[in-house]
């Protein structure tokens, strides 16, 4: 209990005859960022809804901050903060009023509430817009205010459901900084869901890949990359002659005469690296430079789920 913020065993949920979650197990240590990565419809939002007490699971159990999700929902609610996929703001109120509303509902004394609201507006760079109705805010501002409202109650465990979906690249970077800062400055535990591999790679200590309601892999970004073949060693040569003679030594290699490079499939491990260098030595070919490419999370996802992530591809292309 002292080191685990969130633990879940066998979470299941179906809507009608459509099964959304097929037994999810999670263990998330305190003070870490955990990413649930998956395409649309994988069950990310449902997992967050269950863990944040919004929806009851059909089966399975979970403990949040040491409290049983089902039996001690009120205790769980007092520990958590949730920023959902769609901004949970009151559009008819101003930014400041939204924050004060949260402060009132968290039963903070009036002065403390005002202090906290002002501090959060400053921290999220919203002070100038504080008195404007939220309906006039841009997507990035809304998301920031949404997170600020979550933070009013000083939650120890924060659920972020697709915190940057629909944001422009700049607002996304700002959001990332805010999330990193949260963990460093406040020591909170964050469970975030994302469709963006880059986002999970950037923010999370551990990543679980969710597909069709099942966890298909879990580990650090590095661990995940390692289970996937598809890495390669890239050699660059000074001349076409050297490239060609090196290419003669490696059967599976792909040569690129324009760039004067050779791509050799490899898992990037030291023995593999040494073997390549030995072959070059024996053939008396000098390489100008060598780079090891480990697969990125896109490769991981493709390998694990057997299908691509169209949303991500489109997103990366922007």
């Amino acid at each position, binding site marked *: 209990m002292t080191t685990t913020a969130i633990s879940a065993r066998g979470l299941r949920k179906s809507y009608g005859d459509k099964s959304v979650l097929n037994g999810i197990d999670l263990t998330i240590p305190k003070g870490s960022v955990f990413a649930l990565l998956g395409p649309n419809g994988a069950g990310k939002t449902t997992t967050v809804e269950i863990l944040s*007490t919004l929806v009851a699971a059909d089966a399975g159990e979970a403990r949040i901050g040491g409290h049983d999700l089902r039996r001690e929902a009120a205790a769980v*609610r007092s520990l958590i903060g949730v920023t959902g996929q769609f901004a949970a703001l009151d559009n008819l109120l101003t930014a400041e009023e939204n924050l004060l509303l949260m402060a009132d509902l968290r039963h903070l004394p009036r002065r403390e509430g005002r202090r906290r609201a002002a501090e959060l507006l400053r921290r999220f760079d919203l002070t100038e817009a504080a008195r404007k109705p939220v309906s006039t805010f841009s997507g990035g501002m809304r998301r920031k205010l949404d997170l600020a409202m979550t933070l009013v109650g000083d939650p120890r465990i924060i659920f972020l459901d697709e915190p940057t979906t629909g944001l422009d690249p700049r607002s996304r970077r700002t959001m990332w900084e805010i999330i990193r800062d949260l963990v460093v400055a406040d020591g909170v535990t964050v469970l975030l869901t994302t469709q963006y591999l880059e986002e999970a790679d950037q923010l999370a200590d551990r990543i679980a890949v969710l597909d069709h309601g099942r966890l298909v892999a879990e580990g650090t970004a590095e661990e995940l990359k390692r289970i996937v073949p598809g890495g390669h060693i890239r050699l660059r040569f000074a001349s076409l002659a050297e490239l060609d003679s090196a290419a003669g030594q490696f059967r599976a290699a792909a040569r690129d005469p324009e760039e004067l490079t050779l791509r050799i499939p490899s898992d990037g491990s030291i023995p593999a690296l040494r073997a390549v260098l030995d072959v070059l030595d024996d053939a008396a070919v000098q390489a100008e430079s060598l780079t090891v490419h480990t697969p990125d999370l896109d490769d991981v996802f493709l390998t694990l789920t057997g299908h691509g992530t169209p949303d991500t591809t489109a997103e990366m292309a922007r």
Partner: protein
Amino acid sequence: MSTFSYAVSDSLTMLRRNAKHALRYPAMTFSVVLMPMMMLLLFNYAFGGALGAGIAGAPTGGAGTGSGTEYIDYVAPGIILMAATSGAVATAVGVCVDMTEGIVNRFRTMSLSRAAFLTGHVVGSTVQTLAAIAVVIVAAVAMGFRPDASLVEWAAALGLLTLLTLALTWVSAAVGLIARTPESASNIPLPLTFLPFLGSAVVPTDSMPAGLRWFAEYQPFTPVIETLRGLLTGTGIGSSGYVAVAWCAGLTLAGYLWARSAFTRTTHR
């Protein structure tokens, strides 16, 4: 603080939120007043002459041409009651629109009193509707309505109106929760705004054909209208008073339970 005082403070917070909404966007309050005002104008000036002539004891109607009881004295209590049904529609729409806002899901993940959200809406709407009722009463008096109620009778009439508003507001809060869109939230309670016409709001039930008369006499609005009319203009109340209060109390309880269970069940995305 105890659980109960948290519940009260959360409800007050929610009420403040609804009050801000109502003050900042008065269109909804205006629309609550609009319907009964139109009815008042319509039934006093357009239909009053003909309808008044058909009602015994109200030989003249229209813009007050002569002696005896005016038709407006008959119809005003019924139309004052329509302000309450009009408020019910506004409540259903208000709750439904609010449910489509993401903030409600945020409320659910916070450790606040479960009923606070609904209590805030219902109390807010009740105050809004009572304000509309006051406006309609003033307008009716300006058009010639001459209630002869004593202070106690006025208090009883307002008490009954408050009770009725509370009942209708709880029921329509539940409607707002189960309605999928604001459009359907405004359509579902429409029969409610129609029911007073199928009671004794604009004409006495004796004038109706047998089947309809039976329905009119046993539906909830007729005893409420009869009681109001009795309190304000001194017509006979009989057992209507008890029946009216029983209906209102029953509807309030049913509406409250329905709304609570609907709120626990629904999650709008």
